[in-house]
């Protein structure tokens, strides 16, 4: 009896000790990952003389809004934000519409050649986006889309990711819904708009948020196709500002904070949807 109790206590200690270790490691990593954020935010409010001091100040000894003020009034920051918003928002809306249409057609309608079409779309996943940039640039340039919103939006819209995700989801919707609707005299458009889309609302929301974040952050392609400073998106403008004023750390930190703010707000409210979009890609299940 006594033996059993001792054994139980020691096993309990063992478990809680290990659990303590797990907590320490997990929270330690979280702290390390958060440090660059805290440092950046703090520095964005510090006057220049503290920033070039070798000693870092975690809590600003003196607060200034100069860097933010400069960005909002003296730079093209506002223009860049508008550009990014239009491009990321426009691409997302078009992706939702045309990807859901083709996914609907491939899963709910029956026509010859649809499996070949899906095969080609799947195979295009093997084409790394970046290898395409040189020929893509000549195509976009021939169409006269360099330095335009469309020059960034259309190549982004060609991505097969949304088609693939929606295809998987639409395929698993039971046929019964649709059969009942057909008997009630629903047209194809009504089935798409009133049956399939409402059922797919959660995955459409995930796809929309993921695509918005993805296109907000896109770097290489906008860098190539947008050469006019007033046409830049935020990521390109940021780097341009950085490379042009290499010695103004306060400005870099402030622009970092401002440029990330919209996405952080989105993340705060829709974390679940964004994470789910990633998880669906990686586990192939919509559950």
């Amino acid at each position, binding site marked *: 009896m006594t033996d059993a109790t001792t054994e139980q206590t020691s096993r309990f200690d063992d478990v809680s000790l290990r659990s303590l270790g*797990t*907590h320490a*490691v997990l929270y330690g990593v*979280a702290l390390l*990952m*958060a*440090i*660059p954020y805290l440092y950046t935010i703090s520095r964005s409010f510090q006057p220049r003389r503290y920033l*070039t001091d*070798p000693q*870092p100040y975690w809590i600003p000894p003196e607060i200034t809004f100069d860097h933010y003020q400069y960005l909002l009034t003296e730079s093209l920051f506002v223009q860049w934000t508008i550009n990014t918003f239009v491009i990321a928002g426009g691409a997302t809306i078009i992706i939702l519409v*045309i*990807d859901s*249409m*083709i996914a609907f*057609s491939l899963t709910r*309608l*029956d026509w010859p050649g*649809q499996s070949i*079409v899906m095969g080609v*779309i799947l195979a*295009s996943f*093997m*084409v*790394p*986006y*970046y*290898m*395409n*940039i*040189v*020929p*893509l*640039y*000549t*195509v976009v340039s021939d169409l006269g889309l360099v330095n335009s919103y469309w020059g960034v939006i*259309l*190549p982004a*819209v*060609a991505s097969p990711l949304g088609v693939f995700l929606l295809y998987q989801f639409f395929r698993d919707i039971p046929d019964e819904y649709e*059969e009942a609707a057909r*008997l009630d005299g629903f047209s*194809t458009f009504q089935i798409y708009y009133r049956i399939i889309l409402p059922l797919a609302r959660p995955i459409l929301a995930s796809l929309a948020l993921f695509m918005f974040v993805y296109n907000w*952050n*896109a*770097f290489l392609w906008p860098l190539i196709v947008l050469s006019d400073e007033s046409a830049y998106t935020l*990521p390109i403008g*940021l780097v341009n500002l*950085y490379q042009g004023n290499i010695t103004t750390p306060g400005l*870099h*930190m402030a*622009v970092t904070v401002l440029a990330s703010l919209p996405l*952080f707000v989105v*993340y705060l409210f829709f974390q679940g949807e*964004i*994470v789910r979009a*990633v*998880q669906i890609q*990686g*586990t192939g299940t919509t559950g």
Partner: protein
Amino acid sequence: MGLRNRFTTGENERAQQTVFGVRKETVEGIAWSLPYLAVFSVFLVWPALKGFYMSLHNWDPFVPSESEFIGLENYIELFNDPVFWDAMKGTIYFVALSVPLLVLLGLGLALGVNKNVKGKTVLRAIYFSPYILTVAVVTLIWSEVYSEGYGLINYYLGFVMSDPPGWLTSTNLAMPALAFMTVWWLVGFNFVIFLAARQGVPERLYEAARLDGASTWRAFKDVTLPQMRNSILFVVIIQFILQFQVFAQPFVLTSGGPRGSTDTLVYYLYRSAFSQHQYGYGAAIGYVLVMILVVIALINFKVIGTND
């Protein structure tokens, strides 16, 4: 799939409807696919094919019709180009540093959080958060952390060593520094996938393993890993593909230096095409990149395998 196997009266009537002698459903199916297929063809399929054509030419960016056909000469030149091989070495080094860490750290964090820990939502939110930053923001933040004069790391290193190194100015350290920064940025992507995959493993498998007296390690090796195989395969392949295309980190922070130590293939492709206007050469680099990635994907399939 589709409406093929259904023989209700309504379906039969529908299937017989025609437009100009073509089944109505066929017309609809194609019409509904057309908007995406148009964009897909023009901005993805066509460039992929055109790229191969361009790579066989001494491409004239200003008068494309004047481009001279030179066969495989771009590829031959590439294989004799020392800068290409330096960029290749740099890329492989970057991949070798970042991919294992991205996968293992992502897996470790996921298995840890899956345990009975407090504050799972907070941990998940923090681990995933850098993923939503643009690479431009990531590089700017870390330029401050790595800075030689007033950087965060070197200030604290200054307490334990007299002469802390320049992280981005040393040929030995610049690439590891870029890789570490990349792990910070992207590990959350792998983490959430592994977490979902681990949560999808049926708990009864672990109970069965426990009844068989399996140790924690055995349960991990015989239950967790095989059950998560598809997700591990996905993450490994996607990370190889993404990290092989590393561009922005050296472009912003080091310009490929010091002394070419952080040059990469996509960065070289970018310079060839958009600084030196050698479009055919750039397209050839793109095609070599694709072939490498296809081989890597096939190797991964062979080594890791799938559950299906």
